[in-house]
């Protein structure tokens, strides 16, 4: 074989690069498609979406602990857990903050209409 381009090394190098790119693509795609089941991540996403402060997040975590919830994310769909009357005397200092949080997370036009009806 004549010249640098005629060398078989180049063919090997090209094959290695191709395999590396193909492998990386497969790996990334498989990772993206792999189902994830991470309750903590979901709770974090929900807190971000609702723009909650650290104190509010901390309050939610305490509330989830009080109700012994499998995941604190469940608090985002259960307004009754924010009812300070059900929480007991220990939660009285937080009643105002809990009420504010409940209004932010659960007030909706549809529920108001349903209540009126």
């Amino acid at each position, binding site marked *: 074989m004549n010249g640098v381009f005629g060398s078989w090394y180049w063919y090997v190098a090209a094959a290695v690069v191709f395999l590396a790119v193909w492998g990386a693509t497969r790996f990334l795609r498989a990772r993206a498609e792999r189902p*994830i089941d991470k309750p903590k991540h*979901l709770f974090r*996403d*929900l807190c971000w979406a*609702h723009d909650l402060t650290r104190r509010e997040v901390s309050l939610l975590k305490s509330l989830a602990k009080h109700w012994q919830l499998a995941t604190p994310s469940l608090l985002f*769909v259960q307004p009754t857990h924010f009812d300070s009357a059900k929480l007991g005397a220990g939660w009285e200092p937080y009643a105002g903050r809990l009420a504010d949080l409940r209004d932010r*997370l659960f007030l909706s036009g549809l*529920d108001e209409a349903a209540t009126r009806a």
Partner: protein
Amino acid sequence: MPDGPTITLRILTETPNEAATAVLIAALDSSSVALQLGAVRALLQRRSFEGMRELVRRADSMPEAWRQTVHELHGRITPVVRELLDTDEAGRFERGCRAAIAFREYELMPVLIAMLEDDRHPFFQEAAATLIALADELYHDLATTRDERRRRDPQTARNHAVAALEQSVRRFAAHRRREPIEAFLQLVPRDNALLSRILSDPREPSFVPMLEMLQSSVQPGVLRLLSSFLDDGRPPTTGLAGALRRTDRRWVEHLLKRIGTEPSPAIRANLKHVTVIPWLVDVRLLDELDDAQQRSAVRMAAVSGIKRDALTALLETMLRVGKPEGRRAAVLSLAELKGPEIDVLLLRALRDDDPTVHSVALRQLRPRGVPGALTTLIQALDHSSAEVREAARSNLEEFTFRRYLPAFDLLEESVRRTTGTLVRKADPAAPARLLEEMQSAHGKRRMRALEIAAAMELVVALENAVVEAAGDGDHLVRVEAARALGQARSAAARDALDRLRDDVSFTVREAAEQSLRRIEQAGFVDGDLAAGSRFDDVEARP
């Protein structure tokens, strides 16, 4: 800015994190309606098997709003329902059937057909019942107004279902199951080629079961198909015959609703070939029909080809025991028939309490030449109902003022009076026309008008005009006015007669004297209007 539940649901719908499913399932029991509904939608949009299994588990008890959401996103839950049907466990299969019906999973009809055709399938009977129920749901979907928000077009679902059912009907000889035939009849349009072919070929294996189904099924879709044959320009003979041999109440009510107030031309054309309608002799059934249904039944019978005796019997029954609308339709239908027995029914209708029945019968009297028609009509002129009086008047057209006026001079005195009285009752415009005559420029016409007023006994009604005529420049007119005033009763009339006692004409004076004597003999008192009414407001026509 979106509200709290909207933000939560957006995250729970869009996140690839499977942890969202458990949260959404918990949201189904949330105290927030918005979150409940949103969770149903989100579970379907995520195509979460676990979530959809939960929805299927709650299929029987879920609120209507949830069900609507499942319908809107149709097809999403189908694999889960199908999964339930693919089992040997009875309870699970039953749950799948209930879910298929609740969520109107029409896509599962081919699966159910395959199951019911296989007699080794442990639940082939349940599959058959579910197929019929689904066909019924689809029929109702087709019959109701389509909600454009819904993604599913019931027409498309029907086309797919009919295609699958056609295959099953073709395989009837192999599986001998009647349910696919019934479901097919529930959904098929009347111009379907397979339907026409089977109904026109008794050698078809499914011919007999299809005919039996047409004669016995109470499914609304089958009833709709049957009655649609009546609208067909070229209906299948067996289909039509099958339809009209049915006697069950549900069919009769459906048929009468289809016929409505008056059969359409297409229905009339088909009914002409129908010679037997068995339920028309069922007096109890007829009696149980409501007003509108009785009317439709009578009209249907009247335009059909049933024997005259049967029709007469129906009309007789209806006139005897029918509800008002039924009796009205019956008496109207009499107009299309002739014969002494029909005249008897007509005379019976004249005794009906309902003024409409009475008046319709009256209108038929003279065209039929029923003996005593004129007397009956004349008597009806004094009937308490305006409708009856109007019917009598319209059939006494010869007794109009327009005819009476030129004939008046040719009539004898007694005939003038009897005819005049009739004209007064039969022609409501008579006083106004007479008033026009009384105000004519020709003395002879004014004179005759006064004579007519007396003959028609309209003097009281037109008293002002008669009193005015007493001062007419023509003495012949004054003579007639003086004579006519003999029927008057007011002080004004008496004063006019008093004045006429001093008239230059002897004849006028004599007539005035005679009239005054008549008034005194009759003992009329001033202002007594007991026997007539004034027409002071009658004005001459331009």
